[in-house]
Every structure is written in structure tokens, then in C-alpha cells.
């Protein structure tokens, strides 16, 4: 379903690729976060998009118009599901009521994969609905790994975790975020959704070198990239998803491509949402940078 180009049975790679960098079988191409504002255009227009990501929680409803559109669009495009409420790092018990809803939606949509964030969103039965940073130490590492294993067992499939933007760090951290993230993936068997903008935002807020982050992540674990816009206040940067992708983030994307190769890439826009054509132009920019960096897909 995901791969609409011929696959070489021997190598699992695309035979049409002119790129000298091998194209992994899970590569979906260049996608976009699906937003209600664009439902009608996505169905009506012939657009150059390879796949869509949907926010799982938005469709954990019983029925109605948005869900009707979702299923129509799913018939036309590959999809991945992206959640914001797993709260994998929380010390509250795992929310199996939520996980059951996630599983139902997974069965309905048959996504290529499902993802959530390396963070916690609430504790003591209160939900902040924010992606709050964890301390990066052994206690948190053991806690997260054990919960990822439980979630993957319940869902019957590996999940992807995404790095979040953060504005503070804790004194009881004993390792860097990328050491922590990489270790979570290695030990729990989860895969990685690398948000290039979030690396840039956190690097600015915590004064680290974003290239160190990229270098610290195992090459074979990354399955998806996010690209998004932010708001730059000089002393700090906030991950607002209400602007086009900024130039330094495009530059970091190029570096990420050089390290990780062909990775399914998409644009995330959540606020100040422009007409679909404007976002498609950003997707084209990502496609062009990837082609320039890695060669032609053929």
C-alpha cells in the first residue's frame, strides 16, 4: 500500500532509484499533517503528496463528518497515526482506556505506523496536554523502557517516539537527551521519529550543537522526520507550528539527510493554517532538498 513504485525483491530497495543512497522499504516519500481545513481540497484536487499523518486523538470520536472525510482520504493515501496523549514518561499508570481507543483506530485506519512523544503529559490524574520534558537519568530511562515494552506488547507492534521541543532541563539529568533517546530505542525496540525543528529549538534553548544530536542517534532507528515552523524570540525559541519552516531548520534537515538517508519526511502545521497549496510548496522544498542531497528517486 505504501510503496507505489516497484520494489526489487532481492534487496528490498526500489529498482527505479537513481540515487546512490539506498532507499529503505519503509520510505513513504514526502507527506503532510492532515488538517480539517484541507479535507475538501485533498479529496477534490490532484495533489503531489505521497502520504498523510493524522493526529490520533482528533479521530477518537464515534462518528460524524471529520471521521467520514478521514476514511475517504485513507482510501486514497497511505497514512501514519501520531498521538499526543500516551504520556510514556508519566509515573501515573499507563492509560489502557486510551490504548484501547488507539488500538481501535489503528484497526480502522491500518496506518503504516503509529507514533507519540518521548515526554510526559500529566501526573496524578491531571493532564496538561503539553509535551513536558523528562529528566535524563537512569530512573527515567528504566521507567520509559519498561512502559514502551508494555505499550508495544498491547498494540502488537513497535511504536515510534518523537523528540520534543523543550524550554527547561532538570538538575537531576545525568546524560544528554540524545544519549537517553538512543538508549530508549536500543533497549525497548521502539523506533525514532526525529523532529528536525525540535532539535533546532531545543539546541537554541539549551545551547547544544544540533549536529551532536544527529550524530548521537543510531542510523538504523530513524523512520520519520518532522519539519515545522517556530517563533524566534532571540533569547529563546518556541515550537509554535504556526510559521513556514525556517532556513536554519532546512539546513539542519540537509545534515539529517546526509546522516540518515531517505527518511519519510513531512510538514507539520497546527496554527495559522494557510491554503493547502502553500503547504504543498513546503513539501516540494523538502523533496527538492532531499533530491539534491541524496540523488534522484527516479
Amino acid at each position: 500500500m505504501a510503496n507505489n513504485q516497484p520494489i526489487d525483491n532481492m534487496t528490498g530497495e526500489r529498482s527505479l532509484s537513481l540515487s546512490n543512497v539506498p532507499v529503505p522499504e519503509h520510505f513513504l516519500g514526502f507527506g503532510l499533517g492532515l488538517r480539517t481545513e484541507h479535507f475538501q481540497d485533498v479529496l477534490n484536487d490532484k495533489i503531489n503528496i505521497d502520504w498523510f499523518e493524522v493526529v490520533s486523538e482528533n479521530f477518537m470520536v464515534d462518528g460524524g463528518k471529520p471521521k467520514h472525510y478521514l476514511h475517504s482520504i485513507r482510501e486514497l493515501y497511505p497514512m501514519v497515526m501520531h498521538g499526543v496523549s500516551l504520556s510514556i514518561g508519566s509515573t501515573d499508570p499507563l492509560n489502557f482506556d486510551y490504548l484501547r481507543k488507539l488500538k481501535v483506530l489503528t484497526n480502522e485506519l491500518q496506518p503504516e505506523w503509529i507514533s507519540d512523544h518521548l515526554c510526559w503529559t500529566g501526573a496524578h490524574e491531571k493532564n496538561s496536554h503539553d509535551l513536558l520534558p523528562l529528566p535524563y537519568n537512569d530512573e527515567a530511562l528504566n521507567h520509559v523502557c519498561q512502559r514502551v515494552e508494555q505499550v508495544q506488547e498491547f498494540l502488537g507492534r513497535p511504536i515510534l517516539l518523537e523528540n520534543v521541543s523543550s524550554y527547561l532541563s532538570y538538575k537531576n539529568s545525568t546524560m544528554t537527551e540524545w544519549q537517553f533517546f538512543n538508549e530508549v530505542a536500543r533497549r525497548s525496540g521502539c523506533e525514532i521519529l526525529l523532529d528536525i525543528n525540535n532539535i533546532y529549538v531545543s539546541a537554541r534553548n539549551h545551547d547544544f550543537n544540533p549536529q551532536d544530536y544527529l550524530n548521537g542517534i543510531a542510523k538504523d532507528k530513524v523512520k520519520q522526520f518532522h519539519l515545522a515552523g517556530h517563533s524566534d524570540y532571540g533569547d529563546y525559541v518556541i515550537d509554535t507550528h504556526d510559521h513556514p519552516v525556517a532556513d536554519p531548520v532546512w539546513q539542519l534537515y540537509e545534515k539529517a539527510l546526509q546522516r540518515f538517508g531517505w527518511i519519510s519526511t513531512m510538514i507539520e502545521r497546527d496554527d495559522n493554517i494557510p491554503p493547502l497549496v502553500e503547504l504543498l510548496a513546503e513539501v516540494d522544498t523538502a523533496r527538492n532538498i532531499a533530491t539534491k542531497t541524496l540523488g534522484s528517486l527516479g
Partner: protein
Amino acid sequence: MKNDEKNKSKYSVSKLSLHSLQQQMMNYLTDDKSAVAQHVVEHGGISREARLHIYKNAYQMRFKETIDNDHQILGMYLGDDLFDQMVSGYIKAYPSNNTSLRNFADSLPTFLANQIPFKDYPLISELAHFERLLMVAFDAKDANHFTREHLLEMPHKHWPSLVFRFHPSVQIAMFNFNSVETWQALKQEQAPEPAKQAANIWLLWRNNDRLTQFRSLSQQEHHLMTMMLNGHDFASLCDNLLSQSPNEDISQLALNYLLSWIDDGILASH
């Protein structure tokens, strides 16, 4: 590597458990308790208070935007100052315990019915209740609608024993004030009539085109619908109409009701 060394030196050894750290962070977000600040790294051009405040500000804005989206007409009715007072009071009184923001403001009508100054104006709580019912109808479970074709396919002799089922989106709501009329006026950007007390009943549902609709119900129609909800068949509905208005053409009246329900998309097929 060099960067890792630099980072390490910033961290003092602290044995604070993950559980306590999360408790303190939530206490900061929900109740302004500042104990968590001592565990935050002081670094670069912005203070740790400013760093924490980014999260606090996002916490409040996120819930405010959610209420604003769900309750646009209520917002117009209250005006900015009262709306802000409602939002900050509600966020404190009903912190989210759900994984979806869709449900965050579910208790807003209850909050407004019990909190000064809002409780002195019961229309405010009713407006909020009406807007939440619109949301319920909007994303309620899907079902095929019962159509005129379905009815005609049925042999006439079976009509009396037909038991109709409502579409899952159907909501019946009673109000004590002219709340729905007020909502309608504001929606059309007109000045609403002053609040006045009068019992009224409304029907809300999602129609054949998946659009949310509502209309008022007479006592008679409401009574028939209550009977349907209790599983009474079409013959019982007709008997009831006959007992109320013995001189009318009951079969025509009953058929008119039935056809209007079918055409509105209120009934679900079996």
C-alpha cells in the same frame, strides 16, 4: 563529546525521584506552587522562572483556546472580561483528566450553574449546555438513516407494529430560559432579547448531509418522542394522539409526524 562534558558540569547530583518531580511540576502548572524551580537548570540568557513560565503560559492558553473554540457564542454573550474570569475559574476548578481536549469543557455548564457571578444568570449555563449538545450531535456515532424508501418497502399491515429508533446523534434538551433564541440571535450577529423565563424543549441532531441541526419541539411531539425512546410502537403513538385530540384525523397527523422525522434525518434504519 566536548558538549557532553560541558552539560554534565551543569548538573548537580540530585536524588529527586521522577514521581516527585512530576508532582511538583503539575503543582506549578495547576496551583502556582514554585517548589519545582529549584530543580530546574539555570542556564543562558533566560532565568529558570522564565523557562517555567513558558510552560505555565502554554497551559493556560491551551485550555482558553479550547473553551473559546467550543463556546464561541457564549464568549460573545459574556464579553472578554467575564469570559476570562470564567476561563481562569474553570481551569482551576476542573483541571483536565481526559486524554482528549474534546472533553475538557464538559463540566462548563455545571460550573456556570454553581459559580458566582454566573449562577445568578441561569441563561449563561443553558447557553453553554446548548453548545455542548451541538458538539455531541456533531461527532456522535454514525448510523444509516431511515428513509421513505425503507417505509414504503414495508407491507402496510406491519406499520402499526413498527418501533422507530433515533439516529445516535439525536439530543432532546429542556431549557428554562430563551437560551436557544439568544444563541440564534448572537449567531446572526443580532442583539438578543432580554433573558426571560419560559420552559422550552429542543431537538438537536446530525442530518443526512452530516450537518448539525436543531429545532424546537411542541409538547405533543416531545411526548411522542419520549414514547418512542421507551420502545412504544407506531400504533401506540397513534392511540396516544387519539386520546388527546379525539376529533382530528389521527392517521394523517401521525403520518405527518413520521414523514417529517424521516425527512429531517432523525430516525435510524434497523
